């Protein structure tokens, strides 16, 4: 399998989809511009034409409804928001039209519309460029929500979104765009509703998603070196959720930590914990736990984001505590050789 970045995997998925089916459209602010949505749409207009790959006015609400209409008209549109935050303008169309069309017309018509939303963080993105409202979308009957972590999953889940028959919220974290991994060539689909086991283990079940799965993997690897064995599930799909995988893991470990990529109160982690508490009561040997973004907007100053996000060291410490152990997390912190508010050395601002 070729190695590529997460961003390249998304571009690859779009190129494969556009080539495979003339019904596929790719649009959104800046789609054909020289930056190509962080590289994810570069060159697509040149190859597939301005009819199918195009820019749009700053009209998020209408352009979502236009995607709904295009989908009802037989197309498979992919709309991209450079930040999830901008999609707040389009929630009426997402919730009242895209998510409900199939239901409210009794199955007459479906809306295969994919909406990519990029999650911002750090480098002063600030209060309105770094929200992750994933739990909102997961709350809406009729929507699917995916938040892939790896290039392979990003490509396979995006293709599944495009060629499926549901409206899909596709959440991609800006900090994952430069992460590298192997991904199959050509066309393949990864079905929704299946978590991926990133690490197998016996002592505690850790459920994470998106960027948090990478942080959790660092934590789990660190603890493995100290003899603790964690079962790490990358959720991938937030609706539908892979309850069988979570249930099976918790039944084995008796312990559950959920690491949420969104804010704590009313988040996806809470839902998973509620599920475990109500349905896996007898299997839990200790109180379940969650780590999440605090109930606060992300501020702009780097001084105010330093203690804001959940990182590997917090996850490792929480797991150790759940197991009545202690762990020295300094190596985890020391492994990061760049400031806390950037995803890596490659990032020099401004976006």
């Amino acid at each position: 399998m070729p190695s590529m970045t997460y961003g390249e995997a998304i571009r690859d998925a779009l190129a494969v989809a556009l080539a495979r089916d003339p019904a596929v459209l790719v649009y959104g602010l800046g789609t054909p511009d020289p930056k190509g949505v962080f590289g994810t749409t570069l060159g697509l207009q040149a190859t597939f034409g301005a009819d199918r790959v195009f820019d749009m006015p700053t009209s998020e609400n209408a352009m979502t409804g236009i995607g709904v209409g295009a989908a009802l008209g037989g197309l498979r549109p992919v709309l991209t928001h450079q930040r999830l935050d901008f999609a707040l303008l389009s929630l009426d169309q997402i919730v009242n039209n895209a998510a409900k069309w199939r239901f409210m017309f009794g199955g007459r018509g479906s809306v295969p519309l994919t909406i990519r939303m990029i999650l911002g963080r750090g480098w002063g993105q600030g209060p309105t460029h770094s929200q992750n409202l994933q739990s909102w979308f997961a709350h809406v009957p009729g929507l699917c929500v995916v938040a892939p972590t790896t290039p392979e999953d990003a490509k396979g889940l995006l293709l599944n979104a495009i060629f499926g028959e549901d409206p899909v919220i596709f959440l991609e974290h800006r900090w994952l765009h430069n992460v590298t991994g192997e991904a199959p060539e050509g066309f393949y689909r990864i079905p929704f509703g299946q978590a991926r086991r990133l690490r197998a283990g016996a002592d505690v079940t850790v459920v994470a998603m998106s960027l948090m799965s990478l942080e959790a993997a660092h934590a789990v690897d660190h603890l493995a070196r100290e003899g603790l064995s964690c079962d790490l599930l990358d959720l991938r799909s937030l609706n539908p959720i892979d309850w069988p995988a979570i249930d099976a893991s918790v039944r084995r470990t008796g312990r559950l930590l959920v690491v949420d990529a969104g804010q704590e109160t009313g988040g996806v982690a809470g839902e998973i914990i509620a599920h475990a508490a109500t349905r896996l009561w007898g299997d839990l040997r200790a109180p379940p736990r969650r780590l999440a973004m605090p109930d606060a907007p992300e501020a702009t100053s780097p001084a105010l984001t330093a203690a804001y996000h959940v990182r590997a060291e917090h996850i490792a410490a929480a797991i150790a505590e759940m197991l009545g152990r202690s762990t020295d997390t300094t190596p985890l912190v020391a492994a990061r050789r760049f400031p806390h508010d950037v995803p890596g050395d490659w990032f020099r601002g401004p976006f």
Partner: protein
Amino acid sequence: MTATLPQRLLRDMLRIRAVEEAIAERYAEQKMRCPVHLSIGQEAPAAAAGAALAPTDLAVSGHRAHAHYLAKGGDLKAMIAEIHGKATGCCSGKGGSMHLTDLSAGFVGSTAIVGGTVPVGVGLALARQLAGRGEMVCVFIGDAVLETGVFYESANFAALRRLPVLFLCENNLYSVYSPLSVRQPAGRSLAEAASAMGLNATAGDGNDVLASHDLIAAAAARIRRGEGPQFVELATYRWREHCGPMFDNDIGYRSPAEFEAWRALDPIARLTRQLLAGGGIDNAWLAATSGAIKDEVDAAFAFADASPFPGPEAAFTDIWSPEVAACRR
């Protein structure tokens, strides 16, 4: 013998009114358990559009859509059954009066959020344009839609891409009980606002069905010639209450005199007089047409009455695609 255009328009208006009046009469029986927004008095724009559009053209609408659905050729029985919440309804009972669809007639759907289907219609037009097909899309809207941001966003994109879409605006002066004066600045016409967005806009008398038809047909012809999106504003008036079967001129938001003035412009009476005078129809035609409509309406209500309710499990289907629904279990 096939009907002349005026005959068709008159028949369609008579049919819409008969259906609406039947709903109004029977609403108190409490078997139609959903909000209904009737078009009695404003049948002309719907009938005119129905005749000006080709059967393969598409349409979408809003909360007050019975007339649009019927004029576009939507199945009457399925609509009445839907309003009764029956399994045979056009949405299998899930949508009610405010959600109508008949894909075979090109009526894609009406929904209950003001302005909500405006971009949907534009998206359908985009799909048609990309497919290189000649059909156009008609988006039925009310005067309040000119207050929604999504209208301007949609019109802008339609103009930008020169999409084959017609915005057909029935200006009946009110949004619920609110006159235009508390919603839009005095002296600004709806057509002007639309025109400034890049829509080719015309306006006319929505109680004159022949004139309305000419305006719409001209706009449709421009669309088919590739001249881009069009806007037609038709002045008309709703006779009954905003939602529900009653008259409401007594509650104070509009004067009985205003109502009477508009009722005198009844588009059906007007065309009937005209055609009777000009020999376009005679009383026999009228009696036969009304009789046939009455039978059809009665049959539709009988169909709805006789139809089964959906089973309770249907409340939980058609939410996700079958594949996704399967893994949510």
